[in-house]
């Protein structure tokens, strides 16, 4: 379990992480979601003692990272897969991890198999690795000590779709066996596929957090009918406010049962009725981080 309590980091007068508090629980994949520069990486560096917090604490199973006697056996960390000496081979990087953690030498081959790096690839210098291969190597290094907690910064970056699926299965499996996973991403789609819990961060502040299902529910309902105007009228009659999306569907905060009943009462034939899943969360993501993003819409 990772417990983050009022973690704050300031550089001079500039606060990049502002009083964040959350918990990544055992058996769950917690997604740390935010646009670039939101403070995700700084927060993760504070969790593992690479950056000293200005205020607040981060503990792993109740202890500060720096107080863990052999951290690699308890926490697997991958902050930047490219942060390796380009002149070492992949196998050598895993061997260094294996030796310092004091795990059997056979773990190196096991982990290479696990992340599907071939023997020939493992003997190449990481300077020649693609980003996807570095991510796989980074995952292998994080897992080699058989830890119960994983902290991964943008692990899906540079992976192809098959790789992202592989990563999802691997982390799902890891969490299902009781592990704690905290992973960050600036891509909502990735987080939505992998995470059970979501912590959304923008400009160093947590803008919302909760289980994915509760956040999805909060995202509302998408409904579509042959005649949108009639549908909107029927919803309004039932006291349900809605907005017309660009694609001609209606969006509302009411849940599907309420919307379905209202349409039935109004005699409207629906062509679609569903939870606003990805689209809804994305809208929330964009909305919640609207005043914190770099790109402002031209309108």
């Amino acid at each position, binding site marked *: 379990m990772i417990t983050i309590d009022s973690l704050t980091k300031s550089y001079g007068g500039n606060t990049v992480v502002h009083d964040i508090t959350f918990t990544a629980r*055992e*058996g769950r994949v917690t997604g740390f979601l935010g646009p670039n520069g939101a403070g995700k*990486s700084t927060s993760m*560096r504070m969790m*593992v*003692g*690479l*950056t*000293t917090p200005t205020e607040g604490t981060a503990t792993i*199973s109740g202890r500060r*990272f*720096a107080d*863990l*006697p*052999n*951290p*690699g*056996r*308890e*926490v697997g*960390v991958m*902050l*930047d897969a*490219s*942060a*390796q*000496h*380009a*002149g*070492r081979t992949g196998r*050598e*990087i895993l061997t*260094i*991890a294996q*030796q*310092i*953690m*004091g795990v059997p030498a056979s773990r190196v081959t*096991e982990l290479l*198999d*696990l*992340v*599907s790096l071939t023997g020939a690839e493992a003997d190449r*210098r990481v300077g020649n690795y693609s980003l996807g291969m570095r991510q796989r190597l980074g995952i292998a*290094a994080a*897992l080699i000590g*058989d830890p*119960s907690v994983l902290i991964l910064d943008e692990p899906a970056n540079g992976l192809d779709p098959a790789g992202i699926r*592989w990563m999802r*299965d*691997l982390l799902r*499996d*890891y969490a299902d*066996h*009781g*592990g704690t996973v905290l992973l960050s991403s600036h891509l909502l789609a990735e987080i939505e596929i992998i995470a059970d819990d979501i912590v959304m961060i923008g400009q160093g502040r947590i803008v919302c957090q909760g289980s994915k299902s509760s956040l999805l529910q909060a995202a509302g309902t998408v409904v579509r009918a042959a005649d949108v105007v009639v549908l909107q009228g029927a919803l309004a009659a039932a006291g349900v406010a809605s907005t017309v999306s660009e694609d001609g569907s209606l969006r509302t905060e009411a849940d599907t049962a309420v919307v379905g009943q209202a349409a039935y009462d109004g005699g409207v034939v629906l062509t679609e009725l569903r939870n606003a899943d990805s689209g809804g969360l994305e809208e929330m993501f964009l909305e919640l981080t609207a005043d914190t993003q770099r790109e402002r819409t031209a309108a």
Partner: protein
Amino acid sequence: MTATSAIKADQTHIGRRTEFAQIPLSRVVRVELRKMFDTRSGFWLIASIGITGLIATIATIAFAPDADLTYYNFAKAVGFPITVILPMVALLSITSEWSQRSGLTTFTYVPSRGRVVGAKTLSAVIVAVASMLFAFAIGAVGNVVGSAIAGTPTVWDLSVGHAVTIVLGNLISLSIGTMLGMLLLSSAGGLVMYFVLVLLVPNLTSLLAASQDWFRHLQPWVDLPFAQTFLFEGMHTGAEWAHVATAFTLWIVLPGSFGLRRVMRSEVK
């Protein structure tokens, strides 16, 4: 997918509470020693000590006047490349964690940066002592072969005490690399400063000493490369030890402690 079954096999016990033993310093030293050799650049840097040592021996036999074919001169010729190269080994082992960003993993395996830097320094000392033994051995071979070729008597003019001060002198050179590495945390900047300190500064101080009388008396106290020559040429007086100790404090201990603070506090990213 095979990946899934593999992770299941070894992670059925995630979440168990095991109290792990502290990583022993000897293990950190062993790994840091390994890291000095496991890249092409690191390997050749250390290999160059042996290669230049051999070249120096051959050059001494070929070019030195017969009267100079003594053990001390051979050991000095073989030892010179060590004096120049070892500090770079010590420096790069520290700065590469920042310049190559591998510190991001190193310091998550061993969060105590003091232990990591300590282990790096110990590893460098091990390499230094091994290289010096190599230099003394090659020097002995050169001395025997050289005097046989020249037909002069083989002269063994290096006492054990003098050999020890030569090793000490090289360890001081090495500590220049350690100090600069901690202070600058940058491979490029560290190497530039290193050459400024060992090539440029001695020239400037000797110029100053030649023209300024007050500095000539002060020099052995404040000029570390100058004080080191006492160690290389054999210590004779207690005053020389005092010079070495004072210059070492000024050049290594004071800036080194600032450097250590930087290592402990700087953000690794």
